[in-house]
């Protein structure tokens, strides 16, 4: 395969534009993200292709498997283009009707369209579904449009034009300036200005430098990076290439979570395509600049998301952080100057180069520019991946885009920033997403996990959950984090088990302060955050657990009686029908009764009861 030149890129783009603008035929874009794969999108795709072949429609209609569409809760998802008709929860049995009615007859199948949970109306156009309507895709601009395994598709959407500009028309200093103007800050969580980071590394002396991509997305409830890698792997490679040019690096490594096999597979394909076409390797696009990328699979350690730990892990050691300075920009991987950027940060770079830093900075707030990708999950109607301008309020994110809380329950808190983050209660829902504004209410922007919790979530239990995570993932190097988080966890477990004592809250607070001020790395320093933020807003729940031995959310099993309140019982029998242990006796028009001998305390009855009668 000959190496591509800029002219080749332009020729490919012109030739393939009908494909990405859907002007030459009908396209069925079926989601091939992890979520939709799990709900059966591959068999839907096979059935579609088979049906199209039978009806001899293959010439006019093409099926394309895209990366993650983002609306994961509705999988398998398919969008029909042109027309932008959105279908959800497809199954193999729907295919014949879909082809007859929509593809041949031109009439969309109503029952397979999105149903707005509040108005109960069906919405056909993807752009009119509130989940999509309030978004501004930039890092996710190609999601659901291109085939992530096709280089031509990517080029048709301006792919590698940013790299061409950076390599052929700009000096490294100009690239760095443009990124500085964009105001882009690290999307992995810390929010360090990307341009500055590059500048430090570019000024460090050394023949060998590295560009690393942090794809070790470890925060629970976060799947932004997975989706970007699955939907648009070339965007990340192009971002790394531009970063390499800016700092003068010749080698790049993507540190990817081994739990993301599909993302790794698509990255491998993309790297092979880029090499074959001279977009990686020697003398890229005839610029004389050389750069290559390899993938390094992590082995499951949360702490490896910390930059110095990540580099140690690539060196084949236990992934434990080391004190800084020296910063990685001076001494990073193998003691060489290194830049480490997150997947989402890198996915923004090519467009900043193509459209200019000022374009990127045209949306956002004073200190947080551009857009941010969030992974919405938990107790919210529309679960999935969203990208919004900085400055959007949490309320818009959860109630407009997210469609509010299911089952008519009440919103309680939203957890931002993963284990290093915090919970934000209802009264701060008008906080805009902005690094500083979110920090002010006791959470952090973090990598973008947004976990919504309804009234049935116990905040003490949540604090315990996060502490269990952190304690387990503490690398053990420094004492405050290793021992301190263990002590915190012990106290929280005791409180949840109904063994809380007066003075526990004060002990939690004191320990937290010590851990915060004396741990070595960011993971340790932020580890008490889940405790501190729940204490700050939900102190009364801690007190109820400790002093009254009561769990207000009725989640802590040790504090529940497993009795039915006859006043509240509607005598419907729903609990009895769902009890997996046959422990509930009920007859028509009778209050149900739980046999405590048989009860396995699985909380099924509690989940099913609509009247809050299980105590």
């Amino acid at each position, binding site marked *: 395969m000959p190496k591509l030149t800029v002219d080749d890129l332009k020729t490919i783009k012109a030739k393939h534009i009908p494909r990405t603008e859907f002007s030459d035929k009908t396209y069925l874009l079926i989601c091939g993200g992890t979520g939709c794969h799990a709900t059966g999108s591959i068999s839907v795709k096979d059935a579609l292709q088979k049906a199209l072949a039978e009806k001899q429609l293959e010439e006019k209609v093409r099926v394309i498997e895209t990366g993650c569409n983002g609306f994961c809760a509705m999988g398998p998802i398919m969008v029909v283009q042109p027309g932008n008709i959105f279908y959800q929860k497809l199954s193999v049995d729907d295919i014949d009707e879909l082809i007859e009615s929509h593809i041949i007859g031109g009439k969309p199948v109503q029952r397979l369209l999105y149903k707005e949970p509040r108005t109960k109306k069906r919405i056909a156009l993807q752009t009119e579904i509130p989940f999509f309507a309030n978004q501004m895709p930039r890092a996710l601009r190609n999601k659901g449009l291109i085939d992530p395994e096709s280089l031509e598709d990517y080029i048709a959407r301006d792919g590698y034009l940013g790299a061409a500009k950076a390599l052929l028309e700009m000096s490294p200093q100009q690239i760095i300036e443009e990124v500085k103007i964009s105001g882009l800050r690290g999307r992995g969580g810390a929010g360090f200005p990307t341009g500055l980071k590059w500048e430090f590394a570019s000024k460090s002396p050394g023949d060998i430098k590295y560009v690393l991509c942090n794809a070790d997305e470890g925060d*629970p409830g976060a799947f932004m990076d997975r989706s970007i890698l699955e939907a648009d792997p070339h965007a990340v490679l192009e971002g790394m290439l531009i970063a390499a040019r800016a700092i003068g690096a010749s080698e790049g490594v993507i540190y990817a979570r081994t739990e993301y096999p599909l993302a790794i597979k698509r990255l491998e394909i993309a790297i092979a395509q880029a090499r074959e076409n001279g977009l990686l390797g020697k003398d890229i696009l005839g610029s004389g600049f050389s750069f290559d990328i390899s993938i390094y699979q992590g082995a499951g350690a949360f702490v490896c998301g910390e930059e110095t730990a990540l580099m140690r892990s690539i060196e084949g050691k236990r992934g434990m952080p080391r004190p800084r300075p020296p910063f990685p920009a001076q001494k990073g991987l*193998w003691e060489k100057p290194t830049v480490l950027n997150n997947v989402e940060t890198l996915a923004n770079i090519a467009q900043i180069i193509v459209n200019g830093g000022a374009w990127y900075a045209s949306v956002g707030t004073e200190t947080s520019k551009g857009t941010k990708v969030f992974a919405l*999950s938990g107790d919210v109607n529309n679960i999935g991946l969203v990208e919004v301008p900085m400055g959007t309020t949490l309320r818009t994110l959860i109630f407009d885009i997210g469609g509010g809380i299911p089952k008519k329950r009440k919103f309680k808190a939203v957890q931002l920033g993963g284990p290093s983050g915090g919970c934000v209660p209802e009264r701060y829902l008008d906080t805009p997403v902005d690094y500083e504004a979110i920090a002010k209410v006791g959470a952090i922007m973090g990598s973008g996990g947004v976990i919504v919790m309804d009234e049935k979530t116990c905040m003490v239990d949540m604090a315990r*959950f996060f502490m269990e995570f952190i304690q387990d993932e503490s690398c053990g190097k420094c004492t405050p984090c290793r021992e301190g988080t263990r002590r915190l966890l012990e106290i929280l477990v005791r409180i949840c088990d109904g063994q809380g004592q007066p003075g526990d809250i004060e002990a939690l607070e004191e320990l937290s302060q010590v851990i915060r001020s004396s741990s070595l790395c960011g993971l340790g320093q932020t580890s008490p955050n889940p405790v501190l933020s729940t204490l700050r807003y939900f102190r009364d729940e801690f007190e109820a657990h400790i002093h009254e031995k009561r769990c207000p959310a009725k989640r802590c099993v040790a504090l529940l009686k497993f009795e039915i309140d006859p006043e509240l019982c509607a005598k419907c029998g729903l609990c009895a029908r769902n009890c997996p242990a046959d422990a509930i006796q009920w007859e028509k028009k009778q209050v149900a009764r739980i046999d405590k001998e048989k009860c396995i305390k699985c909380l099924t009855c509690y989940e099913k009861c609509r009247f809050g009668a299980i105590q």
Partner: protein
Amino acid sequence: MNRSIPFQHPDITDEMWSSIEQIIQKNRNKPGSIITVLRECQQVVGYLPVELLDYIGKSMNLAPSEVYGIASFYALFSMKPKGRHTIKLCLGTACYVKGIKEVMARIESSYGVKEGDTSEDRRFSLEAVRCLGACGLAPVMVVNEDTHGGVSSDKVIDILERYQ
């Protein structure tokens, strides 16, 4: 036996040995490749017996303490044998909020297997894993290669009964 193998181990067949040797050969001179070697060897054998760790260390010119240190640090590596089916329960926040804890309790009590362990009949290994990033399907259980979304404590046993 027509070929010499480093040592006899009940869970490592001759075929596995030849794969292991290839993996070591391929990575012997690459700095930092030990994690890759351990991962690939685990794929071959199913887990990493301690004797194998010692052998890998010797072959890669690393101290046994270093290899054991790495194998015990990373969650991916297991030094215990696995059951016929591996159940992975996602303990990410979204799955937790949606009740994975109750699912875990149900599996533990129904099959007599504890988290991180294998049932006595070696039918199931039960693992709690970090967020799988499939939060749209929460709570999520992965059995072998199959992902099951929206599992609940009352449905989980029906699903697992399909894996004998």
